């Protein structure tokens, strides 16, 4: 017993040492990586970084903190964008030499930001979107930050109430959760939603297209990754022409029964085609950014025209007219056509579980 205690003590000290050291090592690795990137920069780029650094240092502490938080989000987005690439494409990006690889990563990030931006616009009330768009650029960030804080509190309380009831939590437990610190609110809602999704899976069967094994592996993920993967699964099924059949929300536009399922599927294909294809970016990695942007836009437009024609989403005359439109005008027309997909379908109050 004495030896067991001694052994446990030694193991505890060792794990503490290793944990502490690995944290220090990762910080040190990050710095070493930054140094390597710094040394790969051209002198004028280094000078630009120094100017930005001086600017950053002159900002108030609160603004610096906000920038650091946003930088972390952007870093996560960059990684998510890379994760979304099919494996062969990801490997091709990794094999690019440094200037091209960095540039392609930045452009993939831009694509990801545009995709999320469009998704979030559909989530916000139209009047809020309009107000944000009309705000002066220098005030927009502050206006949005205020809205974000208020909305987070409102939605958190609302969701805890609803999810708590559906999960059968005691009223006092629901009240306790609603009083938790604001910073924990979103995480708590995601956790409850994941639990409810799990119970729905047990009650109504697994989401279509998932095996029990795959479902269990998804449930083992942290909530944020769980919902991201589930959304990807839904999207893949939709693009493959199958109904996702998951959850009460989703992208089911009002009146889609009138439009018919084939049209809905065609619109989804068009929506997917209207976004730049990462494979095009990688293929054109050695072109200048401007030439690449133009070529990618042209290929995207060609894909859209092909789907418009094949799926007869517009008449022949209209198709000819669309062919003559320039880039932004063409993109505007496509956006209008797929707008019903972005309209949220909300079940009537008595249908909500």
């Amino acid at each position, binding site marked *: 017993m004495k030896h067991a205690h001694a052994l446990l003590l*030694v193991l505890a*000290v*060792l794990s503490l040492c*290793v944990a502490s*050291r690995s944290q*220090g090592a990762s910080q*040190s690795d*990050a*710095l070493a990586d*930054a140094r390597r990137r*710094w040394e790969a920069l051209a002198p004028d780029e280094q000078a630009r*970084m120094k100017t930005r*650094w001086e600017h*950053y240092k002159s900002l108030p502490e609160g603004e610096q903190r906000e*920038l*650091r938080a*946003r*930088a972390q*989000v*952007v870093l*996560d987005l960059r990684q998510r964008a890379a994760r979304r690439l099919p494996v062969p494409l990801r490997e091709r990006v990794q094999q690019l030499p440094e200037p091209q690889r960095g540039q392609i990563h930045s452009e993939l*990030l831009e694509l990801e*930001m545009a995709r*999320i*931006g469009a*998704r*979030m*616009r559909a*989530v*916000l009330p139209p009047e*809020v979107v309009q107000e944000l*768009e009309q705000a002066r*650029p220098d005030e*927009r*960030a502050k206006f*949005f930050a205020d*809205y*974000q804080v208020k*909305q*987070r509190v*409102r*939605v*958190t309380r*609302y*969701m805890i109430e609803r999810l708590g009831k559906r999960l059968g939590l005691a009223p006092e437990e629901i009240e306790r959760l609603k009083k938790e610190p604001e910073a924990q*609110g*979103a*995480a708590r*809602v*995601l956790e409850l*939603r994941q639990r409810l999704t799990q119970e729905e899976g047990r009650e109504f069967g697994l989401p279509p297209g998932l095996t029990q094994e795959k479902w269990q592996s998804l449930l083992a993920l942290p*909530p*944020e990754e769980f919902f*991201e993967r589930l959304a990807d699964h839904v999207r893949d099924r939709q693009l493959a022409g199958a109904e996702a059949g998951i959850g*009460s*929300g*989703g992208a089911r536009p009002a009146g889609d029964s009138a439009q018919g399922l084939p049209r809905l599927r065609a619109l989804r294909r068009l929506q997917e085609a209207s976004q730049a294809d990462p494979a095009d970016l990688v293929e054109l990695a050695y072109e200048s950014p401007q030439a690449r942007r133009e070529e990618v836009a042209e290929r995207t437009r060609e894909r859209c025209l092909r789907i418009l024609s094949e799926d007869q989403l517009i008449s022949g005359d209209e198709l000819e007219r669309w062919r003559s439109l320039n880039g932004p005008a063409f993109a505007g027309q496509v956006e209008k056509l797929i707008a019903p997909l972005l309209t*949220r379908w909300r079940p009537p*109050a008595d249908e*909500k579980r």
Partner: protein
Amino acid sequence: MNPGCRAFRRSLEQLLEDARGPQEWTSLSWHEHLLGCRDCRALLEAEEALELLLASLPAPSLPPRLARRVLARLRRGEATREAALDRLLELDPAAPAPSDLARVVLAGLESERAQPAEARLDALLERARAVDVPGDLPRRVLAQLAPERTLVRRRRPILARRPVQLALAAGLLALLAAWAFWPHRAGLRPERELAQAPPGVDARMLEQLDLLEQWDLLRRNDLDSLLSTLPQADQLLFEMGSEEGAPGG
């Protein structure tokens, strides 16, 4: 090399250094080890010493107590067995002895008696086999053992001691703790990081290089940039709220 080999070789080495005669080798209880250890046999075979060693081994003998016990048991058995044997012999017819047996035995005894006392003594002494040891054998064997000598002597006695082991364990833990916690002590880490920055470059700037590289993106105020840089948990929260009909503000 196992502990048995080490003990054997240390004894051998000690014996050779003391320059005792080969007859002393028989006092070591190493024949059992040699029987089971190919490496040690090979070591001695290389210098033809194995044959000499084996030749000098003492005849097997029983410990005195064991010998007494065996004799006692034999005697106990004899009493009953002899009586039974006598009874059997009585039943047998007398064995016919060869007619010249007595003469042959007597002649043999006579010839032995005729030998002088020195000759009989010599014959007895010849039974203890003489060992002819080459003069430089100890030196050659020692030379073979030389690489092991320092190794064995330096390590084993020190590491085998418990206080030394405890001291080593404590030292190891102290080193680990220092390795783990030293970089986090106030005032030391920045210098270490500064040491990694190229000359003329602020290490704190390198720490924020990600941010500076994305400066334009982070300073953008268009709506898509603002919306897409919401923390992912907030994005999901707002989406769920929208699906569930949460108030949009």
